[in-house]
């Protein structure tokens, strides 16, 4: 199938639209005949990462490339960065604002959930911004038979 490439902007604090990117991508993954289990993994990763950009950053974007063999996703934001990636990766550790908590987020499970579902995850951060690289490999058994 053709490669599907998209870039979406993500606005700071735009919580009511969060999940749109995951929904649109879920539809494309289903169209490509991928299994429910595989679609769920990718959807969880996308949703959690999108929420992170919305609630923690000054805004950013995500680029997506879906081929027959893999999915590559890169989230970038413009700051303020993560103080300690080790702490951020710890389940339950959270620096979420009251805005995030009132909206049901901020459990400190976002990055651990992303790590659990993705095949490759690379998180780098400075005050100028955070970059999250995710890769999901698509195997033949990930397609509906």
């Amino acid at each position, binding site marked *: 199938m053709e490669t599907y490439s998209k870039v979406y902007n993500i606005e700071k604090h735009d919580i009511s639209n969060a*999940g749109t990117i*995951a*929904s649109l991508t879920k539809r494309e993954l289903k169209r490509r005949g991928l299994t429910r289990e595989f679609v769920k993994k990718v959807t969880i990763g996308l949703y959690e990462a999108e929420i992170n950009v919305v609630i923690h950053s000054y805004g950013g974007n995500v680029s997506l490339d879906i081929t027959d063999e893999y999915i590559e996703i890169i989230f970038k934001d413009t700051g303020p960065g993560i103080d300690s990636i080790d702490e951020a990766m710890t389940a339950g550790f959270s620096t979420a604002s009251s805005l995030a908590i009132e*909206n*049901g*987020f901020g*459990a400190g499970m976002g990055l651990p959930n992303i790590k659990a579902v993705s095949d490759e995850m690379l998180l780098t951060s400075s005050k100028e911004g955070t970059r999250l690289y995710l890769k999901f490999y698509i195997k033949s058994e990930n397609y509906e038979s």
Partner: protein
Amino acid sequence: MKVKNILESEHFQLISDNLGIENEVNGIFSCDLLSHVMGFANEKNILITVLNNINVLGVASLLDLSCVIFSHNIQVNESIISKANDLDIPLIRTKLSTSETVISLYQSGVNN
């Protein structure tokens, strides 16, 4: 079991349109933190929550949950009901507490 079977109990009131009530139900998940729901709920689960927030529907849709039950008689915003109707996700309200809701559903035959 289907969502419509749950609605046979006097405790549960459908507050969205009559859409999705044929959805299959295969388990109960109760949580007010959406990342936990994302990480641990399964397709066709019922979500019980007090989180009166539009993002509940984003998560319910992404995970293909069967319905959302608002416990403790939570008054749900119109914008949430309208979004649920767009997504064909049944919204149910109950005066029961979250734990009473779980027990009631379990007694009516939903279990995981």
